[in-house]
């Protein structure tokens, strides 16, 4: 299908919106009526046609507007993109992975022509036509990681692997859920996860690290994570928290359906061939409560998950104060009927709301 790219904003007047297609394919993260941390890793080998899992790097209707938002974030704060000196090779690996994947998965949108180290990259939606020499930084307007991640949705953490650990040694981080690359750069896996509650005690990070160290080339993995965001704001960075935090207090029973968004991260993990680094794309999908409620199963389930979530997690995810208002809203969409297992909305088999 041809994607109609939206012209929209993720700040100020917030004109972001999801089409019916985007709602249909939204990665609803709850496969049952409750939620607790888990490693929940699976192979990233495609998925149902049209789903966000189908391609290696999903491109959707928000592509151009997200890239414009990223460029604005970087202009305001260039430290959102950093790469320690030993990570340049991993940057080239990443550039190759994204260019090859996108040109194969979306041949109508992206083209890559290679003749030895003479490469020609065409990004039609963004109007980019770039000839360059692979592995020669002087032939690109930015370093390889920055160059390609200015053209790919989602954040990218590039992790060096050594000493049986992963190190946050490079990244393009402009749509993060409240963590700072500038603070975390150079940290190992346990250090950068230090502020996360409960998961350390449950041994989650030890198991997750063991899994990630063994991700092999050509066998990427994926998982979902989620949080809540008021307004479709991509840049929920700690750097700007003193500016956006106050928006959380602007929810009312009247506007909550429109303003409150479920924020889901599709996290994928790819081994990079030359550097043996691991790239960790973190792709953010936003969907308003109002739009989620168009799927009866999601309405029932979201109410139950948010109602039963431990306080520590609601606090960590930053919505403990708004939880009562969320539950008032969501309870209207929970008639107590059972839900089918799995994340998909199952519109054909799940009954409509019975109240």
């Amino acid at each position, binding site marked *: 299908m041809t994607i109609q790219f939206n012209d929209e904003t993720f700040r100020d007047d917030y004109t972001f919106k999801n089409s019916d297609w985007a709602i249909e394919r939204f990665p609803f993260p709850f496969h049952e009526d409750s939620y607790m941390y888990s490693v929940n890793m699976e192979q990233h080998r495609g998925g149902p046609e049209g789903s966000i899992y189908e391609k290696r790097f999903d491109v959707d209707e928000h592509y151009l507007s997200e890239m414009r938002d990223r460029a604005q974030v970087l202009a305001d704060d260039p430290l959102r993109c950093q790469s320690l000196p030993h990570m340049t090779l991993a940057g080239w690996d990443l550039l190759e992975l994204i260019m090859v994947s996108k040109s194969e998965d979306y041949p109508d949108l992206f083209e890559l022509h290679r003749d030895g180290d003479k490469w020609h990259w065409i990004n039609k939606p963004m109007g980019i036509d770039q000839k360059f020499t692979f592995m020669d930084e002087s032939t690109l307007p930015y370093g390889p990681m920055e160059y390609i991640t200015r053209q790919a949705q989602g954040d990218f953490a590039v992790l060096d692997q050594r000493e049986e650990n992963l190190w946050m040694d490079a990244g393009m981080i402009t749509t993060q859920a409240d963590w700072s690359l500038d603070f975390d750069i*150079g940290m190992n896996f346990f*250090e950068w996860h230090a502020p996360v509650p409960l998961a350390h005690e449950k041994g989650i990070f030890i198991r997750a690290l063991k899994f990630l160290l063994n991700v092999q080339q050509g066998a990427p993995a994926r998982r979902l994570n989620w949080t809540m965001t008021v307004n479709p704001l991509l840049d929920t960075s700690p*750097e700007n928290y*003193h500016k956006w*935090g106050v928006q959380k*207090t602007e929810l009312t029973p009247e506007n909550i359906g429109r303003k409150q968004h479920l924020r889901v991260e599709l996290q994928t993990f790819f081994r990079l061939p030359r550097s043996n680094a691991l790239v960790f794309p973190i792709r953010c999908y936003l969907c308003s409560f109002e739009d989620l409620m168009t799927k009866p199963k999601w309405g029932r389930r979201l109410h139950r998950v948010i109602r039963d979530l431990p306080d520590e997690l609601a606090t960590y995810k930053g919505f403990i104060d708004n939880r009562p208002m969320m539950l008032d809203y969501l309870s209207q969409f929970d008639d107590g009927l059972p839900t089918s297992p799995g994340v998909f909305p199952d519109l054909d088999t799940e009954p409509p709301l019975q109240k």
Partner: protein
Amino acid sequence: MSKFEFPPSITSRPVYGTLEARPGKSHLMIADGEGAEAILRIATPELMAKTHIIYIPRGTDYADKLRALNPAQFYEGPSYAASARRIDHVLENAHMGMQIYLTGTEGLMGQAETQAMNAGFPQGAIQTEHRGSIGRRMQCVHCKGITEDVEIDPFVCSHCGLNLFVRDHYSRRLAAYQGVCIDAEDPGNVPPSKGIYE
């Protein structure tokens, strides 16, 4: 002076030990304030004959006691920042296998460790022992300014003036904890400050 036992809550915080004299052709000891006590405890004439001490008194009067140990080289600096170039110079020109001893406040140990690791010293060559102030070196995540010796939570950023709470997250590279605006969601509503480990 008894040593402060840090609570084990922060997985990104380094664990500090107790200095011990190690064999080696040369030794670099960097200390501030009460860190002098840790040096005085392990000092022997043999060790001091091969030791360069870089010391920042922070208003204490230990400097003469350290000088009296007759170290091979002794430098008394007014602040860490003023000593940093000298520390770099020593690290760059060090022999292989130089032993490094850091003692005093977290801010001093963290900054010196970062410098040593940037100069290529492995963590195994660096010992630490906390002494003196438990104040934290804080980076404001908003303006990136560093405020030294923060003993209360919340506190006011000395650069941008925001009210910050002390997040339990430590960066070795910056040798600093993270400070995050506490009243972003309710401007002006700042709880009374208390001691950071209370």
